[in-house]
């Protein structure tokens, strides 16, 4: 799966779930800090990533390094897929 496809899937999920326009989603900022999601939103996002990309997310994965921006989430997905 290419980065572009992963990006599109994530962005579509965020647009549909959090009432923002696609152009309003920052790719390198924290979605929480931008007020797009709250802590519950992170849980929804992690569940979405697991289901959409068929990857396991462990407790140790739950860090700002992995979830701190859309680009970081794409990197996480690809890392998980390449380890599978």
């Amino acid at each position, binding site marked *: 799966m290419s980065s572009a496809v992963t990006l599109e899937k994530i962005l579509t999920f965020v647009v*549909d*779930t*959090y*009432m*923002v326009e696609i152009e*309003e989603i920052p790719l390198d900022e*924290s979605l*929480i*800090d931008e*007020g*797009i999601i*709250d*802590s*519950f*939103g*992170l*849980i929804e996002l*992690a569940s979405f990533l697991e289901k959409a990309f068929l990857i396991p997310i462990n*407790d140790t994965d*739950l*860090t*700002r390094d992995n*979830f*701190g921006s859309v680009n970081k989430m794409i990197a996480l997905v690809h890392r998980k897929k390449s380890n599978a």
Partner: protein
Amino acid sequence: MCGVFGVLDANNQNKKKIVLNALSRLNHRGPDEWGVYLNKFVGLGHTRLSIIDIEDGQQPMQSSDYIISFNGEIYNYLELRSDLESQGYSFNTNSDTEVILKLYESIGIDCFEKLNGEFAILIWDKKCEHLIAARDRYGIRPLYALQHNNAFLFSSEMKVFDTLDNYKREINAQNLFEHGLFWNTLADNTVYKDILTIESGTFEVFNTSGRIVKERYYQVGESFKVNETADNFVNTKKAFKELLNDSVSLRLRSDVPVGTYLSGGIDSTIISQLVKNQTNHTFKTFSVAFNDKSLDESDFQKLASKKVNSVHHEVKISNRDVDDNLLKTIYHTERPIFRTAPIPLHLLSNKVKETNTKVVLTGEGADEILFGYDTFKELKILKEWKMSNGDSAAIESLKELYPHLSHYADARQFAFIKMYYEGFLNDFENEFNGLNIRLANNKIIEKYFNKSLGLKFDKTTLLEKFKTTLPANYSSWSLLQKNSYLEIKTLLQGYLLSSQGDRMAMSNSIEGRFPFLDHRVVEMAFSMPDDYKLKGFDQKHILKQAFESEIPKEITNRPKRPYMAPDLIAFIDSKGKLSDLASTLLSDKCIEEYGLFDTKIVKRFLNKFKNGVPENTGYRDNMVFMFLLTSQICQYWINNPPEVELDMNKCVVDILDM
């Protein structure tokens, strides 16, 4: 409780019609009697709920050169009266109304700081030809002002202005947005264009040309001295208990029966216990119960009732009740709400009325003054986290927060909580303090507004505006004292005392009284060391300790749980169908017609619930839905004001003083 109205206009000699039209809309606040006073300059109106000196306390009341229309209770009126009598003043009635008048006659505008109570006061000073508008310290009783066609108008409720010729209320979108962010508008703003509020703890003086004075007679925290050594815990506990007891004692002064609300939590249980200690007869208690077991607290309510030996009444609320009563509730609140919690209180006040009780004591204020909310814990944790540079003990204590929200307890989800709070580490010590968290949670509503309104969440600009509303000594307070102040000014005043408190009680002509908001109690609590109030993570520590032996342990030991009613699930069924009310007011057509919100975004939001409301739906979705729906309802009531007749047989005062 009562309704007041005033019109200051020397050019209009037909003020009677204006006043009578206004009073028809204040009927619910004062169904027993009404009165009007008119002279060349001013018209004053009053609708009365008779509680003290039923026989003689009619208003507007005149005494020598002063006329008053007042909504509220002055609890220390007997002491003030005694003082005035010793100075040679004589009284014609037994009312607290006359005490205010005579006090004003004696010391003028210095009178307000002497009053212990809750009030919205209009006084016409014939000598100076001034109208004075004053409001109590915490905004318990409402008072609004509007300039229209060179007239200055004052009213207990904003809907009254709908009766004016050539006037229609208009929502101010920027203020509506601010209301959505903070749970209150800032300074003297309201959500409507041109309508201002007389700020709590202030009075304003008007002549026929306009306002000439605005002065603050009280500021929260004014008696706190930074370098003063506090008394020890045991002495403070004793003094606090005695003061709270006295506060209850004053608030039992009434010529009609007094009951209490019981939420099942510690604050209202303590108030009820204090009432029991002071009365030698059984009194009534009132509670809201829910069919939904996850919201119901009736076991604790019944336990409390049994302890105080009260005659207990409850209203049982279904999801359907919430939907059925929202429209009427917002008629009374006049502003959007963020949760449905006020609605059952509208139904509860009806139950109170049915039992022929007019007055209830309730527990509002305790959480704000004694650090009862979880925001206080959050701030404490953030501070310790920041100081410890990521020490795990400080972070682990995040788990203490919000036990009633199941997803906080799960270990996996804990990691996300940590990520969420990390974002506040840089900001929580700025002037927004605990409001940084509320802003972060609420700012998403920006996305829902109609794009053509051009609203933008600009935290920097908002912070600058916000700073101008803060008291001069704000920076000298501790982190938690600041949060206490902010919760009093936003959540308490903007929502709990108004939408949930005064307006819901008043909707059925019931008067709520708040012993924790006796200003002596508030000031004593404010001045206490932080750890008397939040010891470790024990909230309202000193209160629990003071009443340890008198309150059932099951109630004292309950984790903090906010009173809540069903939100989204009351309006959307399990198949995703919206109730008639919601589907009409959130339809594309209505959203477009009212112009406040973006049709596409609202539709997308509602689409989330097309298969019903997911079980783990969080704060945000519930809040957004209620904010959208109730903002629409506010506009609905502007467009469809009801016609209300004034019962001319209930006129008790009709003074034409030309």
